[in-house]
C-alpha cells in the first residue's frame, strides 16, 4: 500500500481550516477529478478534501453528479482524470488495493441493496467472514452487537423482504458498520423511505456522527445537515459550486445558483 506522508501540513485546504473538526488529518482527497459517461462530462475538475471525523453533506439538483462523486470514492465508477486518495491509498486499477479501500469505506444506497436470499445476520456477516476472515461465531456476535446499536436485534434471522424500509436501511447501515469502516458514504439513504421511517434512519446516522464516524452524505434532509454537518458542499452541473458551514448556507450563500437551489428545497 502506498503510504503518503501525513498530510496535515500539506493541507492547503481549500476552505478555512477552522471549519474542520477533529485532527484535520485527511482521509479523502480528490484533485482535479474528471469523469465522463461517453461524451457527457459528469464531474468537472472536482477538488475536495475530507478530514477524519468530519461530516460532510453534499446537496445539489438532480443530475448534478452527486452520486457519481461518491461512487468514484469507492471506485464503483472509475474517474478519467485527476487523483483520488482514500486513507493514504490512491485509487488505481490495482484491484487488490481497491478491495482494501472498499473494505475501509462503507456505502449505503438509496435502494438499500440488501441481499434478498440471505437472512439479516448473513447479510451482515458476509463481509467480516470473507474479507476479514473472521470465524463464523465471532462474526455473528459482532453482527448482533451492531444490530443492537441500530436497534433491531430481534430481526436478525428474518429475510430482508420481511422488513420495513426503515428497518432494511438500518440493516444496510449495520452491514457497512460490520466492516469497521473509516469512512461511511451515504447516497440519499432516506429518499426511498416513507416519512414515518425517515426519522429512525436519520437517528441512527446522527448517533453515528456523534460517535466520531467520518461521513459523506448526499441528502436533501436539511434538518440533518443543520444538526450534524460540519460542512455542506453544493454541486451543480458536475462542479462544486460552493462549500461552507450549514449556517453559511442557510443564512447567506454567496452564489446565485446556491441561493436558488436552497430557496427551492426549504
Amino acid at each position: 500500500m502506498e503510504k503518503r506522508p501525513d498530510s496535515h501540513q500539506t493541507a492547503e485546504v481549500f476552505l478555512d481550516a477552522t471549519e474542520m473538526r477533529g485532527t484535520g488529518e485527511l482521509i479523502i482527497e480528490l484533485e482535479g477529478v474528471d469523469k465522463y459517461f461517453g461524451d457527457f462530462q459528469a464531474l468537472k475538475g472536482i477538488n475536495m478534501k475530507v478530514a477524519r471525523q468530519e461530516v460532510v453533506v453534499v446537496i445539489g439538483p438532480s443530475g448534478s453528479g452527486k452520486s457519481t462523486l461518491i461512487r468514484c470514492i469507492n471506485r464503483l465508477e472509475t474517474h478519467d482524470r485527476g487523483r483520488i486518495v482514500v486513507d493514504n491509498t490512491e485509487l488505481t486499477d490495482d484491484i487488490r488495493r481497491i478491495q482494501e479501500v472498499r473494505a475501509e469505506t462503507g456505502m449505503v444506497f438509496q435502494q438499500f441493496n440488501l441481499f434478498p436470499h440471505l437472512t439479516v445476520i448473513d447479510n451482515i456477516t458476509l463481509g467480516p467472514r470473507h474479507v476479514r476472515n473472521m470465524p463464523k461465531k465471532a462474526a455473528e456476535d459482532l453482527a448482533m452487537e451492531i444490530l443492537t446499536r441500530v436497534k433491531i436485534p430481534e430481526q436478525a434471522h428474518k429475510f430482508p423482504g420481511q422488513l420495513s424500509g426503515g428497518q432494511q436501511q438500518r440493516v444496510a447501515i449495520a452491514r457497512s458498520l460490520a466492516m469497521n469502516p473509516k469512512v461511511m458514504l451515504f447516497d440519499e439513504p432516506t429518499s426511498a423511505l416513507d416519512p414515518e421511517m425517515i426519522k429512525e434512519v436519520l437517528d441512527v446516522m446522527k448517533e453515528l456522527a456523534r460517535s466520531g464516524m467520518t461521513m459523506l452524505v448526499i441528502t436533501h434532509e436539511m434538518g440533518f445537515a443543520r444538526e450534524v454537518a460540519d460542512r455542506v458542499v453544493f454541486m451543480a452541473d458536475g462542479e462544486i459550486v460552493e462549500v461552507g458551514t450549514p449556517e453559511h448556507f442557510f443564512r447567506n450563500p454567496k452564489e446565485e445558483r446556491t441561493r436558488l437551489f436552497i430557496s427551492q428545497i426549504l
Partner: protein
Amino acid sequence: MTGRPFMEPGLEEPILVIDEGRRDKLPPGKWVRRHLFNSWHNTLVTVLLVLLLGYAAYRFGLFLFVNGRWSPVRRNLTLFMVGRYPREELWRIVAQVVIWSGTIGLAWGVAIAGASFRASQTGVAYREDPLLTKVRRYWGLLGLLLLLLLLTESFGPLILALVAIGVGALLQVIGKRVPGQYADLMWAAVGVLAVGGYQIVSGFHGRGWIWMATPLALGAVRLVGRIAWTDPRRERLMQLGVVAGVFGIGYVAYSMLDLEGVGWDHWEGLHLNLIVATVAIVLAFPLGLLLALARRSSLPALRVMATSYIELIRGVPLISLLLMAQFFIGFFLNTTTPLSALTRAIAAFTLFTAAYIAEIVRGGLQSVPKGQIEAGQSVGLSPFRVTRSIVLPQALRAVIPAMVGQFIALFKDTSLLSIIGMAEILQVRALVHAQAEFRGFGIAETLVFVMLAFWAFSFTMSRESQRLERKLGIGER
C-alpha cells in the same frame, strides 16, 4: 408470490389471482357453484368439457382394463426395466435399488435435520410434511410403482419394493436424528452409498477407485477450505479424519466384495435411461454454469470460446451429436479412442445439455440487479466471492423451472439412444415385439406403458422443481 389478487376497478371479483390465491377456501359445493356454474356460458363450457372428458376417460378405461392386451408388458417387465442384463447377475441391480433407496432416504433425513436446525436458530418451529402430503407429492412415481406391482407375475418385485422403501425410511429416520455437527459426515456417507450403489452393478474394472476418490476429494477440498478460512481448526481436522475414515472403510468393504460386475455398456432398459440422464445432468450442470460465467467473463478469449461453443451446439440436432460421438469422432481426433459407446453417448448428451444450461443460467445472471453486485463490492468482497455468494444463488434460483425443464427434456431424449443401437426402454419395446409370440401384438399397449414410465419421472421432476422454487422463495418479495 404473495397471491394478492389483481383487482379491476369496479369489479367485485378479482380478474387475475396469482398462485396460491387461486384456491379460495370454499366448501366444495360452493366452490363448484361459484367457479363452474356461475353463468350460463360457463355452465355450458363445464357441461361440454365434462362430457368430453367423460367420454375420453371411458375410452381410455376400456383400453386399460377391458380391451388392452397387456401380456407383452406383463411377460417382459424385467426386460423393460433392465434389458438383457445377465439374469444371474440380477442381484446386483436389486442391491443397487436398495442401496440407492437408502442413499435417498439418508440424504433426505440429513436435509430435514439441517432445515429444522436452521429453523430452530430462527426461532421458528420446523414443521415436517405429514406422510399423506409426501405420498400425494410423489403420486406419479408411486403410481408407476403400483402399476408395476400389479403387472408382475411374481412376488419378487413386491418384496424388493418393500425392502427398498423400508431401508429408505429407516435411513431417513437415522439421518434426521443425527446431530447437526455431524452433517458433513452424513453427507460423506451419502456419497459413499451413492458410489457404492453404482459400483455394485458396474464392478471395479480397474478404475473403480476414481468413483470412490471423487466424492472424497470434493469433501476434502470443502473441509480444507473451511479449516483454512473460518472455523476452529482442531475440530475440523478431526472431522476430516473421520470423513476420510468413512470413505476408507467404504472402499475396503467394497473391494472385498465381488469385483467383477457388469460394465455399464451392458446396461439396458429403463435402468439405462435413468443412469444416462442422471450422469448427464450431474455433469452438464457444472459445465453449463462455467460456460455461462465464461460467456460473461471480462477476458475476450474466454468469452469468444464460450459463445462459439454454445452457438455451435445449439445450432445442431441432438441426434447428429450422438451419431458424431458414436461413429465419426475418430475422423477428427485421429485416434482409436478407448471410450466405450455409452461413455461417448453420455458425453454427447452432456455437451448438448450444457450449452442450453449455459444460456438459461446466463439469463439468470442477467436478472440479478447491478445494485446487488455493487453492494457486494462496496464491502470489499472479491469478484469471486461476489459471484459465488451473491450473484449465483440469486441467478440459479430464478432459473430453476427453466433448468429443470431442460433436464426433463434430456431425460426424454435418452430415448434417442435407440438410434445408436442401445436398448433403452423404447428400444426394448422393439425387442419385445421381435419375440415370436408378440409380433404385432399389443403394440399400442407397450407404447403406452413406455410413455407412462417416462411421464412418471418427468412429472415428478417438474413438481419437485416447483416445490423447490417455492421453498427457496421464502421471505422474498
